[in-house]
């Protein structure tokens, strides 16, 4: 049975791995293939700093909160393993800053050691009067995607460097299930007015003395439109841009100035940091993640698509929970085709 995963960012590769890990032994005829026009280090995921942190409010979307938790717990379990370094996975503590008191986030009990900031800590951040401290995780995709690729290659998954123009193209080749992990460009395969780019830009600097993430929030400008600083294992990411509807992937001098000035104001020590790069990317923004099955008619046949896209600025944060959910949807497809047998053990 041929399964094609379209998209090789964090969502595509982790979904491919989940499906292969769970079903290959049950279904030896399972062939998983990955199709993408961009691979690491050129995907949207590669530009992200990789900090695990959902948005401030889940808008009542409990499903997404559960997927976030599943991802955090899964990664936390891998922290002590030898794979952690190769995956680009490590713990990071830090600050979320506000200009007024806000309700605690849905993820306060998922992260470690969540608490409010003390008055002395707030002295570090003039202009901010309220905040949180917690310990979370970083998963650097420049290491994680190659790690996933290695695991997939070891399992015999094949990779194709090509831009898929339509689901039909896959079905015509004999693919029975397509996993649609195309991120911000999902609209090219099937129009989706709810999916919009949330353009971001970041400056990469050398500032190894920065050991905490610092994320500011401006309740008026919206998420990620306020300065943030996230240290990585090789460089520190400065950001704070979120432009809804902007498809431009080129770096903007104006945005550079905004990021640089606001981050240096936030952390004066950055003034001496050396700039080593700049990058722009398009968050695949959507009111909620699209994670569902769809039956597509292909001539006389019915083919299946599992959509898994629209993770906005929290793709890394939610990826594993979504990959597992997509694998469950795949399992239900196999059930219907009576291919995998009963998942429940016989009493």
């Amino acid at each position, binding site marked *: 049975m041929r399964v094609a995963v379209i998209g090789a960012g964090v969502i595509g590769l982790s979904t491919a791995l989940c499906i292969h890990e769970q079903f290959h032994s049950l279904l030896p005829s399972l062939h998983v293939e990955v199709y993408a026009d961009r691979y690491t280090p050129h995907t949207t995921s590669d530009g992200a700093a990789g900090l695990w942190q959902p948005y401030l409010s889940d808008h009542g979307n409990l499903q997404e909160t559960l997927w976030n938790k599943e991802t955090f717990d899964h990664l936390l379990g891998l922290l*002590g393993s030898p794979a952690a*370094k190769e995956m680009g996975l*490590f713990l990071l503590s830090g600050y979320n800053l506000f200009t007024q008191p806000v309700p605690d986030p849905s993820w306060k009990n998922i992260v*470690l*050691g969540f608490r409010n900031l003390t008055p002395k*800590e707030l002295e570090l951040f003039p202009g901010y009067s309220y905040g949180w401290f917690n*310990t979370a995780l970083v998963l650097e995709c420049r290491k994680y995607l190659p790690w996933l690729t290695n695991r997939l290659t070891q399992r015999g998954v094949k990779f194709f460097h090509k831009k898929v123009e339509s689901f039909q193209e896959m079905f015509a080749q004999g693919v029975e299930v397509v996993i649609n992990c195309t991120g911000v460009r999902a609209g090219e395969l099937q129009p989706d007015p709810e999916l919009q780019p949330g353009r971001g830009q970041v400056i990469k600097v050398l500032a*190894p003395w920065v050991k905490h993430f610092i994320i500011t929030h401006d309740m008026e400008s919206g998420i990620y439109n306020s300065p943030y600083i996230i240290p990585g294992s*090789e460089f520190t990411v400065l950001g704070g841009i979120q432009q809804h509807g902007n498809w431009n992937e080129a770096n903007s001098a104006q945005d550079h100035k905004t990021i640089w000035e606001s981050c240096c104001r936030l952390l004066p020590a950055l003034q001496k940091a050396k700039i080593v790069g700049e990058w722009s990317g398009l968050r695949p923004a959507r009111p909620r993640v699209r994670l569902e099955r769809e039956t597509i008619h292909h001539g006389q046949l019915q083919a299946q698509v599992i959509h898994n896209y629209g993770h906005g600025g929290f793709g890394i944060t939610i990826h594993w929970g979504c990959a597992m959910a997509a694998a469950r949807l795949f399992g239900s497809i196999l059930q219907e085709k009576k291919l995998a047998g009963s998942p429940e053990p016989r009493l």
Partner: protein
Amino acid sequence: MAAPKVAVVGAGVIGLSTALCIMETCPSCSVTILSEQFSPNTTSDVAAGMLIPHTYPDTPIHVQKQWFKETFTYLFAISNSAEASEAGIHLVSGWQVFRNTPKEELPFWSDVVLGFRPMSKAELQKFPQHQSGQAFTTLKCDCPPYLLWLEKRLKATGIQMYTRKVADLWELHSKYDIIVNCAGIGAHQLVADKKLFPIRGQVLKVHAPWVKNFIRDGDGLTYIYPGIHRITLGGTREKENWSLSPDPGTTKDIFDRCCSLEPSLQGAQDIQVKVGLRPSRQCVRLQREVLSQGGVKLLVVHNYGHGAGGFSVHRGTAKEAACLVGECIAALQGSSSGAKL
């Protein structure tokens, strides 16, 4: 009298910070630093420079707390300025974990560091061999950067620094009015202080840039302190051991103990080994003394014996030493016809 001539013996964190405090309180003083070693070869250069105080048995707690608070406040301001990276000062968060829950609820410094609180159950899961712990945020002074930054500020004031082994304080009496003894472990010989003894510490400095939090075992023997470029892994506390040579068996033992606290350290690269002799004493010797020899007097201010806690209290003790120097100057100026007391 002419500008008082002060010699500071020792150029570790204590000598340099004391010299700086003297210049701040007495700009007209002529200060010279004499030391056998300068950065990167001082005891301070081996230390991680973490602001986690050591408790001196014979110094009143309120005094130790005041020293720590002054030091923390001073460094906090630098860490929040554009000079932070050059000075090597940065905030770091982490955990102190205990295999057995300690009797005392709170250490005396818990309200000086930031965000001090007990660790949650979830946080403790990362340390299956430990029962309880404390989470907090403190400061770290990376050496050599901090010492080099102090040297730069000192040179800007016109202070002279010379490499010179002082074998006897009396060598200096003809050229200097006041001697400030910041010789650290060197005081054992320099002033024959038998109450001063080394506690040998071996550490590893490794490249593991993904480690961003400190971890310290409450027994003080095993610790992981992330610096700007390297992580300091420790350590040992070997009383009366004067050897400065790294011991390979100890290196392996330190590495294993640290990996058991933080498994990802298995991937650490480029392991460097260093040894320092903590200048240990029941209390820091911070006092004036008037030495006498054949009718000649020599004014001395001692500031040594900080053991494992040098960085944590350096600024506080430096300021107090500078005050004592001020008292010496007042005494000199009070003497008749400018002749030495």
